[in-house]
């Protein structure tokens, strides 16, 4: 008898409440045991055993299904429900009325509102516009940097690469925050410009769209430079020389030879900047003004200030639909050459 009891999992005998509060992965396991898919798979594993091969397939796959795909389905579901003054603040889609009738309510009002209220579609259009403009600016600034790095002496290159990556590792929030002190009315930029006599009174940059452009370009510049550099570095400099030997001016040689060859790097860099910029929240919130409409900020306000969970779910669903095409294209590019 004792041996059987030792073999059964101990977790179930300990009070679930205490473990749940204690946190940690035993607590997680205890909580997950409440849900049948998890319970069944645990039972299956205990009965049949888990070969290492099956574990490598099931564990990451199951994790992403649980914590990535399932949440999206829930967002989709809640976007079709009605707001309600309760906890949680939305009405269930499937309901038993008087314990007899099963009613299914699909509420498309949230989506109607997104279409009718100009606040929402203007946020979407504005986000796409700001992201596209910043991507172009990042390309214009990033290309010369990547080009200069690729043409730098070989012994410098790994150090330069390191220097591009380093800001990317330091906190995003802090890098955005640093610009507040520079751009604000009595900030460093205005101080320097006034001192040089270039302007007579301080420019208003912070809390305008310009500050948002600066923030996005600054934060995502490494994403643009890295794929461009990876591409330009592999390019054979002899190609340029032969173009010039054949009578091309340097500028023409650049347009005819370098530019077309670096197109894959340009495309990858642009996607890497554009996609995250569309849904950006921190930059428009900290640097932009009250009238800077970006969809990430709208979603945040809808959720945290107005506490309208169904509507913010609908905003998220539409945002994802807008991004799905660029994301799929990007994934194809990534799978083809993962080193970009």
């Amino acid at each position, binding site marked *: 008898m004792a041996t059987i009891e030792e073999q059964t999992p101990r977790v179930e005998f300990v009070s679930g409440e205490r473990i*749940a*509060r204690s*946190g940690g992965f035993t607590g*997680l396991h205890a909580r997950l045991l409440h849900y049948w898919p998890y319970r069944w798979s645990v039972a299956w594993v205990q009965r049949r055993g888990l070969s290492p*091969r099956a574990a*490598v*397939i099931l*564990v*990451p*796959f199951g994790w*992403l*299904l649980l*914590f*990535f795909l399932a*949440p999206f389905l*829930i*967002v989709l579901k809640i976007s079709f429900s009605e707001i309600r003054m309760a906890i*949680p603040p939305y009405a269930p889609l499937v309901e038993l009325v008087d314990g007899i009738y099963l009613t299914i309510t699909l509420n498309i009002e949230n989506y109607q509102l997104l279409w009718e209220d100009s606040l929402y579609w203007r946020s979407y259009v504005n986000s796409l516009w700001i992201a596209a403009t910043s991507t172009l600016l990042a390309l214009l*600034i990033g290309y*010369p*940097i990547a*080009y*200069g790095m690729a*043409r*730098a002496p070989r012994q410098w290159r*790994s150090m330069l690469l*390191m*220097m591009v*990556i380093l*800001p990317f*590792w*330091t*906190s*995003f929030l*802090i*890098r955005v*925050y*640093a610009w*507040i*002190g*520079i751009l*604000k009315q009595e*900030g460093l930029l205005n101080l320097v410009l006034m001192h040089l006599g270039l302007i007579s009174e301080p420019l208003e940059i912070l809390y305008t769209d310009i500050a948002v452009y600066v923030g996005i370009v600054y934060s995502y*510049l490494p994403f643009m430079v890295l794929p461009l550099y990876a591409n330009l570095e592999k390019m054979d400099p002899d190609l340029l020389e032969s173009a010039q030997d054949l009578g091309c001016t*340097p500028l023409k040689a650049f347009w005819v030879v370098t530019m077309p060859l670096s197109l894959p790097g340009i495309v990858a860099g642009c996607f890497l900047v554009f996609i*995250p910029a569309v*849904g950006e*929240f*921190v930059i428009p919130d*900290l640097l932009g003004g009250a009238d800077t409409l970006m969809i*990430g900020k709208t979603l*945040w306000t809808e959720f945290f200030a107005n506490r309208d*969970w169904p509507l913010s779910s609908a905003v*998220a669903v539409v*945002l*994802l639909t807008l*991004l799905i095409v660029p*994301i799929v294209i990007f994934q194809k590019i990534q*799978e083809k050459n993962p*080193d970009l």
Partner: protein
Amino acid sequence: MNKRMSWFNLGSLVAGFGFLYAPIVILIIYSFNDSRLVTVWGGFSTRWYSELLQNESILDAAWVTLRVAFLSSTVAVVLGTMAALLLARFGRFPGRTLFSGMIYAPLVMPDVIIGLSLLLMFVALAWDRGFMTITLAHITFSMCYVAVVVQSRLISVDQSIEEAAMDLGCPPGRTFFVITLPIIAPALVSGWLLSFTLSLDDLVIASFVSGPGATTLPMKIYSQVRLGVTPEINAVSTILVGIVATGVLAASLISRRQEMTRRQDEQLAAAAP
């Protein structure tokens, strides 16, 4: 002509790196400013650092953040490595497209969507939110980054070494631990560091999935920044930047040294008769 081009290149490098580093350098300088007014220089002092040490709420937030980052990046490395193996070594399996989609999507998905969807799931499951939910959320997106980093390393590994070990009777699991793991170890280290900094950095997802009990450092910084620029935040930022910069530099030095010894070994092996 060559000379002129290189002047242009040098100029764009200097301007570009100036743009990348000036804001951080200015932030660091002003963290040593004695004046409370952030724009007026009042002389060098470290008073904001000592005030920081007495600020309980910031220290608490930092401790929560470090624990979340440590736990989530460690689990993410294990899960991410499994995912990378699945992508790089298992060929076709049912659901491969779905799986690789789920690996690449979080890399480009807006944070607000990930945060909202995870929160709604935690609410639907009626889990209490706090330390645990933040950690779970961070594991989920970090493991995707680890998977991509480790996968690109796995692809570059010469598979014939693994095959040779298995031909000699080594079971696949053991082959992984004895042969593959030591080769891909640098990728695991950089994957861990990447996860750690991503977790240290995350504001949006943590704000969604956190509960009343758990405030992370970025959440704390964000709420202070909304009230205005303060020297304490400059000091916290400087410390964070310092830690990350030291970590990244150390990691790159170590990996470079390893690379050099590996190359020497290879040369010796090639020179041996």
